[in-house]
């Protein structure tokens, strides 16, 4: 197990290095010129030249990368060309939003998907299973930019139960905080519910065909008892792997929901920075998001390894 963890940690560092190089290069392939954004329409060739020098953008790419990565390793991710806000400060605002969105949305997704899958697996191909499976198809095909406005219209505009936009930090009160994240979390959870339900249902049904289940039934145990006590754990590996991937991708992939609800999370800020050619902000955000993705998946792999020895041996 220790060797496995060390191997994965080495892989993690190598991947992080590759990510840093790729992020740096991709950002420099973006069309446009950051001096245009900074100087605006009133720029001149001289002003542009001076600014490029001031920003260090007139150096060679390797020199720019070395300066950037050296600063990153010292904990300095740089600052926005536009707002002068440090990337670290922007991340300190954005990351808690994403973490809370991910946690709440995943709690909702798992809390809905697991009971649904258990009930469906009890009586496969019956009316409940068929209804739930059909509904999951509908959920999968419902884009967030459609689900979001519909829920806003119902719960924010008409019921006025929750705000339509914005994020209230925990320091603003737990109630207000939860009110501000519940709607975007539900929108994010919709897709996950469908995926988790379908994965778990399929695995539960497959596991119910195993010999040890037949044995348990022969011993007189009820199917619901067997399902919860003996079948759920070995059937949840695909669900866990999928949840790990989902958590990683939601870190930046939630930007549509963040834009819709005006939540300044990592994805939203990253897109804004890309549109503004705000290089250092893009590099810093993308690097942190990519490493977070890798780390979360590393954590999910470790959990899976711990739960399922077959993965270790593979």
């Amino acid at each position, binding site marked *: 197990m220790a060797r496995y963890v060390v191997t994965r940690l080495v892989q993690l560092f190598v991947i992080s290095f590759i990510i840093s190089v790729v992020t740096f290069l991709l950002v420099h392939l973006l069309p446009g010129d950051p001096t245009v954004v900074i100087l605006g329409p*009133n720029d001149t060739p001289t002003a542009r030249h001076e600014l490029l020098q001031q920003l260090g953008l007139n150096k060679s790419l390797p020199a720019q990368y070395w300066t950037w990565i050296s600063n990153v390793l010292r904990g300095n991710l740089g600052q926005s060309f536009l*707002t002068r806000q440090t990337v670290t400060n922007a991340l300190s605002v954005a990351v808690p939003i994403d973490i809370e969105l991910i946690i709440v949305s995943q709690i909702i997704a798992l809390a809905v998907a697991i009971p649904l899958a258990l009930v469906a697996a009890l009586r496969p191909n019956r009316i409940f299973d068929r209804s739930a499976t059909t509904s999951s198809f509908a959920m999968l095909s419902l884009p967030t930019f459609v689900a979001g*406005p519909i829920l806003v*219209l119902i719960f924010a505009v008409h019921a006025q139960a929750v*705000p*339509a*936009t914005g994020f209230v930090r925990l320091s603003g009160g737990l109630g207000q905080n939860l009110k501000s994240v519940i709607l975007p979390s539900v929108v994010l959870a919709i897709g996950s519910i469908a995926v988790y339900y379908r994965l778990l249902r399929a695995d539960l049904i497959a596991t119910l065909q195993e010999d040890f289940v037949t044995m348990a039934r022969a011993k007189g145990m009820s199917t619901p008892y067997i399902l919860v006590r003996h079948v759920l754990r070995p059937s949840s590996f695909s669900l866990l792997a999928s949840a790990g991937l989902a958590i990683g991708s939601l870190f930046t992939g939630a930007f549509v929901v963040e834009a819709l609800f005006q939540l*300044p999370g990592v994805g939203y800020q990253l897109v804004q920075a890309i549109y503004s050619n705000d290089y250092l902000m893009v590099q810093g955000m993308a690097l942190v998001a990519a490493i977070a993705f890798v780390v979360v998946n590393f954590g999910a792999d470790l959990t899976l390894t711990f739960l399922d020895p077959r993965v270790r041996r593979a």
Partner: protein
Amino acid sequence: MATPGVSRVSPRRGGSVTIGVNSEINGFLPSTSHFDNSGYIYANTVFDTLTKVAADGTAKPYLAKSVTPNADKTVWTIALRPGVTFHDGSPLTADVVVANFRAVQQSPLTAQAVKPVTNVSATGPLEVTVTTNEPLVPFPHYLATQIGFVVALAQLERNDTQHPIGTGPFSIVSWEPNDHFTVERNPNYWRNGLPYLDGITYKPIASDQSREASLRSKTVDLMVTRDPNVIRGLRHDTAFQQVTDLTRTVGQTDMDFIMLNTAVDPTNDIVVRQALAHATNADELVRLFGAGIASPNLSMFPPGSPYRPADNGYPRYDLAKARQLVAQAAPNHGGTIKVALGTITDPRLLTQIQAVANMWEQAGVQVTVNETEQVTYIDNLITGAFQADTVEMFGVSDPDLNYVWLSSTTASGPGTIALNFARNKDDVLEAALQQGRTQSDPAARAAAYQTVDKRLAQDLPYLWTSRATWSLTGSNVVMNFDNLTLPDGSPAQGFLSGTFTPTPIWRRA
């Protein structure tokens, strides 16, 4: 019937409001930060300008006590109000104003606007003298723009774009870009009794629909929009009060138009530009996309403006004429007129230019529709790397403030930086612009800008479509948001081009 945004009852003190704005700014330093309409709203919250535009269109003293020219308008003496302090407690003095002016002159962003200024000096503890190299009649109007905001020395010396220190009605509490900008009442504000609110939180919400939903769900109390469909949706709802700038003719409002590059093929050919003008049906565009709010406008100036001639001679929609002109011009451009029509990545604008492309194609022009993200789009305009682009601009309080965009002196060929994006050069137009800048007589200025409008209708660097309409809509608890008065008691210019000053706002219990 009550006038929206104007309260006649005694104001209530206290409370706060949340205001939804359409964009985020990049900083609070007037010499280096870009002030779009949201930038001006933020700046009006924490800073004051030396002058402010009055409802009658004149620029009146605001932070300045007086702004007095010499006989030929080449020397301007600015007397400052005594006893005014910044949020950090430092006093407003002539030295501070001079330092602000010098920062503006040295910044590439703002230097062009004050190019005629040759000297700025403190001629007394509270007196600044500004000398220009030519009569600059609208100088007081310049002091009501970005270059007229005065920031404290502490902010200026640190070149600090994040922590504004002004003399304004509110001082900063926190600014988290893309999330909020929160301010609290300045207890030492130099205008007695103002402001009424304890605080304001601005929320930048990029989507007009999300902003509307936020207003309807009471997440925000007041919002700015320029989407005609959103304006229409809120217009007749009795839960809200709405003001628009559609009927305001003071100064120059924002215009929607298609800019043609007069320095690249084939739009460098006046026959091609005439063909495109005749092929563009502004009435139809407004019918399709104006939501009953906007109206067609085939002039640089809105109806009712003294600068708008009775007939500027702008080509009217005439498809047969357009086809004839395309056929006439085509042999000079390889047999076919091919035009790339561009806009920024905005679904609303993309739909509009697809309609324009369809109109031009009916006239026989081959059109390619391009969607570009904003940074590249601006870069293309500046460097002349475009043929036809949709643009919204020209909203100013005096037409001379648009000099840099229209002058032949700021036009150059493609591939080089030019503030005259269309690169239109016209000696008669330039002479008229100089007349408008240097003549004191209002009638002479009006005649000069009428000539400008007529020349633009002949040169056709801009294909006018409609006046850009902005609205400010508030819930019924937000009072007096369109009723700023000036220190002499006269009314100030109200909401215009997406910008307002929050000083007079108060909140009902």
